[in-house]
């Protein structure tokens, strides 16, 4: 089969992987609820007494 004159060379290869793979991010822990406060707090500082 005649495919005509040669034009160029294409190197088909997946992108070289030289960057170390990132470890998967741990899933965020569910918000902790303070002992007796059923309303809880998602502000993160559970050592402060709930206001109000």
């Amino acid at each position: 089969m005649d495919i005509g004159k040669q034009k160029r060379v294409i190197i088909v290869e997946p992108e070289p992987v030289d960057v170390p793979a990132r470890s998967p991010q741990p899933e965020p822990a569910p918000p902790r609820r303070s002992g007796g406060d059923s309303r809880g707090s998602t502000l993160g500082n559970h050592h402060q007494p709930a206001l109000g």
Partner: protein
Amino acid sequence: MEAASELEVSRAILSIQERHGEVWSPTPVVGFRAWSVDVDGLRGVRAMWTSPTFAATCERPFGSNTDREVPHTDGTCGPPPCGIYATHEIETLLASGLTDNLPDLAVGTVALSGKVVEHEHGFRAQIATISSILAFCSDRAYFTADPGAIAELIAAPRAIIGRLGVPLDKDRKDIAIERYGRRHPWTSESRSE
């Protein structure tokens, strides 16, 4: 390596690639091929395909013949030079006369990878994987682009076409053009250029 040196090396590689007419692609190049449908595989011009992926070899009697060099571009093999041949367009393939006298015929798209030499009307590739196929046997036609179904077809083409194919209602070339022709969305999305 420092960023500045990396940049210099990268520029040097690009410059060498351009000088040698070589470009890099992360995605396969798509071309068209034809085979003769046999009982236990698809027969190419030179070899039998018994799986969807085929790797080229060179039969030249002297010189180095490593996988990285095939298909050769230095004129030391052929004519015709080595490599898995595919055309840019289905029309070129059908007009070549290659498919005219085949009683049972298959045409399809191949994803070309490794070293791919682009010519005016087609390619010569180091590795080709069938990505879709339209196969004819007796008075039936069967098309699939599913990798598992392609592998099954290649293992027993006549049996699969006989079982899953639909009756032919027009000329094989017309069906191939309808499926793979220049204006069909199936191929226009996967064009390499």
